[in-house]
C-alpha cells in the first residue's frame, strides 16, 4: 500500500498488505471512521430525554454483537449460529463475577470478554472438520447446551428466573443514574468504537485476507500455506471478545440477566442486522443495527403489524439488493455520482 509504483514486488515482501481491487485506502477510511463516530458522540446534544438515549445505547450493543458476528459469518464464512451464546456467556459471566465473586465491575467486564473468547475456542474444536450446514447444527447445539446448563444450575444462575440487582458500572464518583444515561451512552459508544476499530484492523490485515481466502477458495488457500485450523480458531476467538464484553455491558446496563438472550427471537433480530446490512463489511452490520432498532421504535404504534412490516421490508431489501444496505447505499451513491458527472 505504501509502494504502489511496483505492485509486482509488493506481493513478495512479507510486511506488505494485500491490496484487493476497489479497496478503500486506509486514510480515507480513517477519516470516515472518525467523522462517523464523532457524529454519534454529538447525538446526546440532540436527544436529551433518557428514552431516546436508551434506544441509542441498545442500538450500540446490537451493533457490537452484529458486527462481530459479521467477522465469523461474513468474512470467515463460518455459519456460527452460537454467536448469541457468546453474548449470553458475557451476560452471565459478568453477573456471576460481580454478584457472587464480588469482582470490580470493570475487571468483570474485561474478564467476561476473555471468558467468551475461551468459550469460542472450545466450540471451534468440534467444527474444525465440518462445513456449511453441519457447523450450524453444532454451534446451535452449543448454544442450547449453555442454556440448559444455566437453567439446570438454578441455585447459582437463577435458572429460568434469571438474576436481578447486578452491580452496574461506575465512573469515579459520577452518579450513573441521574445523568440522563449519558455516562452509559459514552461507555457504549466507546466500546463500539474499540470493537469496530479492532474488527476493521483485523479484516484489513494479512490475517483477515487469509481468512477471506479460506472462505473463497479453501483448497488454494491451504495449498498456499494458510492453516484452516489456526485461522478458523482465530476468527471465532476474535469475534467473541467484544461480543462477550457487549454481553457484560448489557448486564451492567440492564442490571439483570435472563435466559432470553439465548432465545431464537434475539438471534433472529441480530442475524437480520448482519444480513440486512450486507455481509463482509462490518459497517453494514452497524448501520443495519441502527436502522432496525430505530425503525422498530418508530413503528411502535403499529402494534401487531410491526413485525410483519419489518419482515416485508427485509425481504424487499434482500431481493433488490442481495448485498444489503451497504450495497443499496453504494448503488444509489453510484447513481447520484453518475448523474453529477454526466453534464460535465
Amino acid at each position, binding site marked *: 500500500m505504501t509502494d504502489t509504483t511496483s505492485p509486482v514486488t509488493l506481493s513478495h515482501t512479507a510486511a506488505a498488505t494485500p491490496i484487493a481491487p476497489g479497496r478503500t485506502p486506509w486514510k480515507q477510511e480513517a477519516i470516515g471512521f472518525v467523522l462517523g463516530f464523532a457524529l454519534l458522540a454529538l447525538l446526546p446534544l440532540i436527544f436529551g430525554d433518557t428514552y431516546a438515549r436508551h434506544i441509542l445505547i441498545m442500538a450500540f450493543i446490537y451493533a457490537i454483537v452484529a458486527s462481530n458476528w459479521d467477522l465469523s459469518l461474513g468474512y470467515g464464512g463460518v455459519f456460527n449460529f452460537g454467536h448469541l451464546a457468546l453474548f449470553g456467556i458475557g451476560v452471565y459471566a459478568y453477573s456471576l463475577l460481580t454478584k457472587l465473586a464480588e469482582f470490580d465491575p470493570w475487571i468483570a467486564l474485561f474478564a467476561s470478554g476473555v471468558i467468551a473468547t475461551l468459550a469460542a475456542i472450545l466450540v471451534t474444536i*468440534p467444527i474444525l472438520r465440518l462445513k*456449511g450446514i*453441519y457447523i450450524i447444527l453444532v454451534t446451535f447445539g452449543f448454544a442450547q447446551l449453555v442454556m*440448559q*446448563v444455566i437453567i439446570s444450575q438454578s441455585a447459582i444462575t437463577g435458572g429460568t428466573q434469571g438474576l436481578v440487582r447486578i452491580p452496574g458500572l461506575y465512573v469515579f464518583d459520577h452518579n450513573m443514574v441521574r445523568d440522563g444515561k449519558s455516562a452509559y451512552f459514552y461507555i457504549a459508544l466507546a466500546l463500539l468504537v474499540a470493537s469496530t476499530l479492532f474488527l476493521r484492523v483485523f479484516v484489513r490485515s494479512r490475517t483477515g485476507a487469509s481468512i477471506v481466502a479460506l472462505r473463497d477458495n479453501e483448497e488454494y488457500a491451504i495449498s498456499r500455506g494458510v492453516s484452516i485450523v489456526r485461522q478458523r480458531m482465530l476468527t471465532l476467538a476474535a469475534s467473541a471478545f467484544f461480543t462477550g464484553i457487549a454481553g457484560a455491558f448489557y448486564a451492567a446496563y440492564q442490571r439483570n440477566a435472563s435466559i432470553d438472550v439465548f432465545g431464537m427471537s434475539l438471534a*433472529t433480530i441480530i442475524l437480520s442486522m448482519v444480513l440486512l446490512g450486507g455481509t463482509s463489511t462490518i459497517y453494514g452490520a452497524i448501520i443495519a443495527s441502527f436502522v432496525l432498532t430505530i425503525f422498530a421504535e418508530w413503528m411502535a404504534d403499529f402494534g401487531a403489524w410491526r413485525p*410483519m412490516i419489518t419482515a416485508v421490508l*427485509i425481504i424487499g431489501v434482500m431481493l433488490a439488493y442481495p448485498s444489503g444496505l451497504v450495497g443499496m447505499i453504494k448503488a444509489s451513491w453510484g447513481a447520484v455520482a453518475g448523474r453529477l458527472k454526466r453534464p460535465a
Partner: protein
Amino acid sequence: MSALAEILFGGLFQGSLYAMMAVGLALVWTTIGVFNFSHGVFMMLGAYIAWQLVELGLPAAVAFPIAVVVMAGVGWILQASVVRPLIGRPNIVLVVVITTLAAGSLIENGALTIWGPRSKQIPALITGNTTVGGVGVSLHQIAIIVITPLILAALCMFLNRTRLGLALRAVAQNEDASHLVGLNVTALYGLAFAIAASLAGLAGIFMGGYRFMSPVMGSDPLLKALIVVVFGGISSISGPIFAAYLIGFFEAACSYYFGLYWTPALLFGVLILTLMVRPEGIFASRSRGLA
C-alpha cells in the same frame, strides 16, 4: 414391560412427526441447496387452515385434504417469491436463510393477527383411547404411527418410480445436466417446495389433533427436523427417515430415564459427538460431498 412399551410408543409417535417434517426439509435442501427456515411455519399454517375449514362446517375428511393442497400452493408461492429470485446469486445460502426467516415471521404474525393467540385444537383423526402393553394411548396417535410410514413409502415410490420423481432427483444430483436434458428446473424447484410444504402442513394437522395449537407451534419441530436432517445425512431419502425414528426413540428413552429437562442437552451432546466422528451423517454414503 411398561417402560419398554412407553419408550417404544413415544419413539414411534415422535419419530413419525419428525420424519414428516425432516423429509420435506431434506427434499428442499437436496433439490435447491438452500435451507428453508419457514418450514416450521408451514406446519403451523397447515394446522390453522385445517382448523378454519373445520370451523366453517366442513367434515374433517374433506377439510384435511383441502388444507394439504392449499399448503402445496403456499409452498409454491413462497418459493417463487423469496427463493427463486435469488437462485444463481453467490451468497444464496445465507440470503435465503434471512428471506425465509422473514417470510416465516410474516406468516407467523399474520396467523397471530387473523386467528389470535388463544390455543386451538382440531378434531383427532380417530377419537378414543386404548391400552397397548400397559400404556394408555389415544387412537389418534396410533393412527399417526400407521399413516406416516404409508405416506413416506408413497413419497419414496414417487421419487424412485415415477418420471416426475426421477426428474426431481436428477435436479438434486446434477442441476446442469438436468438443464441440458431439457428438464424444467424452475418448475421442479417449485414442486420440491410444494411437496415439502404439504408434508409439513400434514404434520401440523396431526399435531393439532392431540396438542393445543399456537402460532409458534412450528419452531420446535423445525429445530428437531434440522437435527434429524443433519444426523441422518441427505444423500438418500431414507437417511432422514431412519434418523427421525432413531431420534424419536432416543428422546423417549432419555426423557424416561433422565427426565424432560436433560433431554435436549443429551441430544445435542450426542449429535456433536456424532458429527465429529461422521460429519456427513450416520446413514450417508461417503460418495457424495455435502458442503
